[in-house]
């Protein structure tokens, strides 16, 4: 359900932007608000990670899994692009 709302607002935004009726000052302003929103939310995510005992006491193993996951996504996207799209 949430995803449909996300898509709806994405399309609404694109339509508004495409219409060319948005003053540049507004979009610049929104960009900045957005940046602060993301920063603020990250602070909260950090707070929760710090409060929640499970993460920090296992940070070694969680970090190790995350590093391997990163390698996996890199190898996966690189290999599939190479196989399907060739060297380019």
């Amino acid at each position, binding site marked *: 359900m949430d*995803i449909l709302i*996300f*898509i709806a*607002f*994405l*399309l*609404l*935004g*694109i339509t*508004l*932007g*495409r*219409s*060319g009726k*948005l003053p*540049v000052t507004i*979009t610049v302003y929104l*960009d900045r608000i*957005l940046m602060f*929103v*993301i*920063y603020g*939310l*990250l*602070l*909260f*995510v*950090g*707070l*929760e*990670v*710090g*409060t*929640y005992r*499970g*993460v*920090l006491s296992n940070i070694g193993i*969680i*970090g190790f*899994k*995350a*590093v391997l*996951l*990163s*390698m*996996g*996504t*890199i*190898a*996966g*996207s*690189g*290999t*599939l*692009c*190479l196989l399907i*799209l*060739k*060297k*380019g």
Partner: protein
Amino acid sequence: MSITPFILLITGVVIGISGIVPGELLDTTNSLIKGFVILLCFVIGMDMGKDQKLWANIRNMGHKAFLIPIVSVIGSLMGGIITGILVGLPPGVSAAASVGSGYYSLTTIMLKQLAGPEAATIAFISNLLRELLVMTAMPLFVAVFGKNGAIGIAGATAMDTALPFIIKSTGKQMAIAAFVSGVLITVAMPVLVPLCYKLF
């Protein structure tokens, strides 16, 4: 690449450890996050919509514009899920973190909302590392996976932080393809992360 998001997250962790923040305050953040993700979708859409040059580029490239980003996301997803199974991560978490495609700030926030602090930490470390590797190992990626593969690996970061490194390693003619690929992944990401979490 801005270091501010990283500093804010770490600051949050330190404050959290200190225990000065009441638990009730944290319980209210989830619905807040959803509201802000909706706002984010709206703004990303407007940002993309107003960019006339981007639309002209997509028109000129035709269906090719969508090839690299689509193959990149599917490849990340496959690699991420397989690795996740091998190291013992829930498939939903590894799938959602993988389609984050290097956009670590938003992926971390969304995974916190979807699956809690442990999944958020996985998303943060794996996507931040992907962005860092894209910036430091681009010549290696081009040599091993080719120019298309390197743009695919850059994922969402191909539109901004990785773009200069892509141009340096692949030449100017790949700049438009890289930028378009990064924008399309960035736009699709707020939808793909929750979708993949629920699907897998």
